[in-house]
């Protein structure tokens, strides 16, 4: 039984080199799946493959029982998958509000309600709505990036290292917001370097090594698994 959004047997990579070797990641609505692992393990690649940004040699991507493996990234976005890249994830020369509007580019209905919802989630964005996104602090930029992605009212949200380069306080704050988003019924996949914190909010976790699923299990299980602790969580 597949979960709401799932991938399996993914193999492939850039320019002939296989970064992924038979890996699979799944997530249910209202749950958070976290992908951790050492550098170069293929964490981001796995996520990009699920979005269709990488052509796979083999593997399936299923959304709500429908095979979407053949769709372009744009089409997958239209199907309700939102993605927040690790870098360059905002329109720095546009205002905060315009960033949110661009997130909703595909929608033709009234988006004001969604914008208000995002302002409720990230109140600071309301204060800065007319400021250029590029002028904001690192944490605020991440909020803009997540807000932009949420504008399509997605059923799946994928975040590529959302806490990279932000302070620990901002990181906790951001994770709290992500849990709030989860509670609205969104399926969330997070790729993270900060494995400990990320696994602590995870419903399900994946430890990727060499493009393979090395360990899988509930977030708390992985956190308590001595092998995982030793190898990836610093004891």
């Amino acid at each position: 039984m597949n979960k709401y959004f799932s991938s399996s047997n993914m193999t492939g990579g850039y320019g002939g080199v296989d970064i992924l070797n038979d890996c699979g990641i799944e997530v249910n609505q209202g749950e958070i799946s976290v992908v951790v692992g050492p550098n170069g393990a293929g964490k981001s690649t796995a996520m990009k493959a699920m979005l269709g940004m990488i052509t796979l040699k083999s593997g399936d991507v299923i959304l709500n029982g429908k095979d979407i493996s053949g769709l372009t990234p744009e089409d997958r976005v239209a199907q309700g998958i939102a993605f927040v890249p690790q870098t360059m994830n905002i329109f720095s020369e546009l205002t905060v509000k315009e960033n949110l509007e661009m997130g909703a580019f595909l929608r033709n209905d009234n988006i004001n309600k969604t914008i208000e919802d995002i302002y409720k989630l990230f109140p600071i964005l309301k204060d800065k709505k007319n400021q250029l996104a590029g002028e904001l602090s690192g944490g605020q930029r991440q909020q803009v990036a997540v807000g932009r992605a949420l504008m399509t009212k997605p059923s799946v949200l994928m975040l590529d290292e959302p806490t990279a380069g932000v302070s620990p306080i901002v990181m906790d704050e951001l994770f709290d917001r992500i849990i709030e988003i989860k509670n609205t019924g969104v399926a969330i996949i997070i790729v993270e370097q900060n494995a400990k914190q990320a696994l602590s909010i995870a419903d399900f976790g994946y430890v990727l090594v060499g493009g393979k699923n090395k360990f899988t299990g509930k977030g708390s299980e992985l956190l308590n698994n001595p092998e995982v602790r030793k190898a990836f969580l610093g004891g």
Partner: protein
Amino acid sequence: MENFDILNALILLANFVIVPAISYGSQLAIAALGITIVYAVLRFSNFAHGDLMSFGTMTAILFTWLFQNLGITGGVLPTALIALPFAIIVTALLCLLIDKSVYRFYRKQKSHAVVFMIVSVGVMFILNATVRFIIGPNDRTFFDGEKFLIRALDFKASTGLEEGLTIKSTQLITVIVAIITMLLLFYFLQKTKMGKAMRAYSNNEDLALLSGINPDRVVMITWIIVGALGTIAGVLYGLDKSFKPFTYFQLLLPMFAAAIVGGIGNPIGAVVGGYIIAFSEIMLTYAYKKFFIYLLPEHLEPSGLMQFLSTDYKFAISFIILVIVLIIRPTGVFRGKTI
């Protein structure tokens, strides 16, 4: 009469420097906007823009002749203004055709910007040949209607001043059309969904794709705008001076200088850059002798022309300003894009 010296000097300056510079600056600003928008969205320096302007102007001239033959004229206004919308449509269609048949291929290949630049040289050749083939390489004036808004003689008679002020109707038309064009453009870019999408695409192409912005639509609208801007700039310049294909090619340098000085890829920068270049060009090539004769006591009057640079070198001024900006602030007055 002594007291009027300052007034006379100011009128002199207005007549020979300020009024011409404002109208030339408006023309350059619209032209540089075309360059800067291609740069911002399509990410290359378009060497064909001068010849695109020349094509748009030629189309407007042909429509003007057609309307004149049909007995339709603009009355006190030049007929070319009626022809302008039609010329814009033809030129925009041409831009789309060129994009589809030429540039699209390289965009799909994700070619380097310099390859696009060379491709634009090929387009320049073809546009240049087309214009020369259809209308010939010679100078043409296509202005009709009322020539002057204020004549020097009338001005002198009514004010009693020694210096006259001439304002050509084309100068006023230039300024009004340029202001309307800029307002429309900035409204489009700042307030409409498509305009914002264009800016978003220019700012962060990958994220724009992730947001579902259709790149082909953005490119199409960009070319329509560029065609319109080129035609408007070309027609305004041609009405004010005259139309000659080679002159339009030579405008490339001041146009690029305006775009780069303002900060290439930044529309406001292009407008400001246009006026900076125009004012510098005219101020630095104007002979201030008479101006100082009005202002200075007799024994201090200058003997030379008091001219910084001969008008033969007006192109050098765009270049010098460009070099100064490149040395002091390579991103331009308003921070443009850096690649």
